């Protein structure tokens, strides 16, 4: 694991053009490692049969990178993402986030990590149907703070939420319930919700999988814009090779292992 100094890390990202002249992608090999997984093993138990999903995955994500994980259905890419997002714990292996081991954190620590430092979006958006767009975006803040503190700082939270909603281009839909939104709008709301805590890492689980080509492109463009303007590290799981090709780097998963591309 290379550890370049902070000084040359940031300009390196900014100065590089997104697309190089030959269609190759930006290179983050000089940037520091944000997320690092070593020898991840995970299997699911279905009754007496143990189904191995990940059989020793090593990977790293560099600061400011837009990484995509591709693979066929059942290759374990979603499981890998869940492990990286601490939604699930690996059977073996270690995960480091900003040089701190996170896979064996107590549940409270993992909750805080997901709440503050890692944003997540999903194929089916996973918005709370009882809440409006704005309330959905505010939900992580509500979870982070107690009732009284939230209430005292509600103006700040509200401003922040409106700001991120504007960023994703949804400021005209604040008081709509998720079922009144289109798929693209729902995914934008989900992105806004993931961003409201200003995380360093965004994990996207097939964010365009439920959208048509055009809207999918829009969402990808939004993610790229965020990646660029906010220096947000994005890890996207997708099975769409075309989308993956537009990201900085691709990791291929096959049968629970990383296939070197």
């Amino acid at each position, binding site marked *: 694991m290379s550890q370049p100094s902070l000084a040359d890390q940031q300009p390196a990202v900014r100065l590089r053009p997104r697309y190089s002249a030959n269609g190759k992608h930006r290179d983050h090999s000089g940037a520091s490692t944000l997320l690092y997984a070593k020898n991840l093993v995970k299997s699911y138990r279905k009754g007496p049969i143990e189904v191995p999903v990940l059989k020793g995955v090593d990977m790293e994500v560099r600061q400011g990178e837009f990484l995509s994980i591709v693979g066929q259905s059942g290759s374990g890419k979603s499981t890998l993402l869940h492990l990286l997002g601490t939604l699930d714990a690996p059977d073996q292996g270690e995960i480091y986030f900003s040089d701190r081991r996170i896979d064996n954190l107590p549940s409270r620590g993992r*909750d805080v990590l997901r*709440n503050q430092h890692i944003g997540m979006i*999903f194929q089916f958006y*996973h918005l709370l149907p*009882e809440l409006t767009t704005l309330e959905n975006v505010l*939900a992580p803040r509500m*979870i982070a703070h*107690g009732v009284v503190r939230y209430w005292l700082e509600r103006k700040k939270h509200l401003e922040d939420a409106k700001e991120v909603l504007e960023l994703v281009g949804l400021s005209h839909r604040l008081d709509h319930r998720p079922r009144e939104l289109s798929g693209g709008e729902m995914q934008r709301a989900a992105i806004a919700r993931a961003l409201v805590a200003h995380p360093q890492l965004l994990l996207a689980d097939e964010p365009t999988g439920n959208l048509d080509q055009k809207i999918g492109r829009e969402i990808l463009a939004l993610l790229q814009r965020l990646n660029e303007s906010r220096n947000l590290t994005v890890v996207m799981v997708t099975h769409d090779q075309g989308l993956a090709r537009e990201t900085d780097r691709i990791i291929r998963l096959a049968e629970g292992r990383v296939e070197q591309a």
Partner: protein
Amino acid sequence: MYKLLLSWRYLRTRYIALASVVSVTLGVATLIVVNSVMEGFAVEMHKRLHDVLSDIVFEGQGLEGLADPDYYEQEIRHIVGDDLQSVTHVIHLPAMASISIRGGETINQYVNLIGVDEKTYGSVCDFSQFLLHPENRQKLSFLLRDGGYDPRMAEAGWSHRRMWAAWEKAYQEQVRMEQERRLMQHPRPAPTAHAADESGEPSAPFDPIASAEAAAEPPAPQPPAPQPPQEPDAALAGEASPETPVAGPRGGRNPFDQFRREEAQQDVFDPTKEQHPGVILGIAIASRRQRDDNGNVKDYFFVQPGDDVQVSFPSAGNPPKPLHASFTVVDLYESKMSEYDSTFAFVPLRTLQELRNMIDPLTGTAAVTSIQLKLKPGANLRAVQDKLLKRFPPERYPYRIRTWQDLQGPLLQAVQLETTILNILLFLIIAVAGFGILATFFMIVVEKTRDIGILKALGAPSGGVMSIFLSYGLSLGMVGSGVGMVLGLLFVFYINDIADGLEYITGREVFDPTVYYFTEIPTIVEPFTIAWIVAGSVMIAVMASVLPALRAARLHPVRALRYE
């Protein structure tokens, strides 16, 4: 914050859960109504019982009673000390009242004859407040009053007495004339002069009611129709010694006649001016409560203040012999406790002592059968009872020392038991409602599985997810029991109107005053009880939501997110 927001949103969007809480609402409402009515009944009954009874009764077990009550009173005053408020002497006797109702029949009824001291009895229990005459309520007197009794018996009092005395006299006259007419027809001695003048008129059957009413119509209650004013001497003579006219002409003048006549004149009891010793009868002895033709509850009196009754009671000696005495009803007693109203008959203590020979001719000490005590408010009844029992242990003294609660123990316990059982049953209803909430909540948790996964993915701790459902259960319980409380209280406040309404709809008496002696359903709203009921049912709702909430908290976020 999200917990409150979400449980509020769930509350507003899940009407099925509100439906599951309806049974909580009904249970709480019923509990409040039942408790208020039972409490009302119990307190009313307690009050009535306590008003009727004195705090502690110290009684001898024989009919002869305590030979030297003043000694015992001294002892009791010494033992009870400062707690004592007042003491009175009482005679309790089983007795039989014979009530002649007009028309010739006599009603014999068992009564509990109670000799009371006019001055002190009212200070021991709230006896006087149950009397019908307002002046007797102020100051008890065993003298018949002129009127002003209860509106149910407008005539009662001296006017009533005079009216019936006049009727009686007229009736006697009628009988006498009838006898004389017979004597005239048969060849028997000396017809009197004026009997012949009258013989034509009264051959028609004599209607006592009509003539009495005729007598009552004009305000002057003078001897009425059949015989206009007559020499009192003759009338009295005829009444007092009917054999004299027979004896006179046959055996010549009896030299003692003169004296006998004077004696009779002095001793004769004039019911228009005099009364026997007074008696206060329980209202149910003197009347029957029935419905009239229109279905209204009405009291029918067959004895009113002013009438005389015969009372037979045992003498003081051993073995007891029956004694008979006439008493004049001077008032009625209405405690609205049917047990007392149908048996109590109060007479002056002194009269009873004299009639029963309970006064020691040498010392002048009068025996009584019991001494009743009233303690100061707040005094510990049981402690005083224990002290008295210590001084007069039952194995050495044949006295019974009982508190009013002992006297009415079974009744009070029955009411208590009834309330307890009803409470248990109704809380079971709410517990059943709790299982409804449990089932509904499990369904909601299953329905919300994905949302729970989302919350966890956003970093909500398990405890937070759990508390969403707990606070959801809490708010459902509060809504349910709050509505139930309002409904229950409304029902309690309007219970008599509701009873009337039910009566109107079903045509059936809900609360029959001929049975209960209450005109209205008594209710008492005890804030503490209501707080308990509401808190208990909210607790049940929360407890029912614990299991679903635990299940929600234990959901694995990944599996929850994948749940379709």
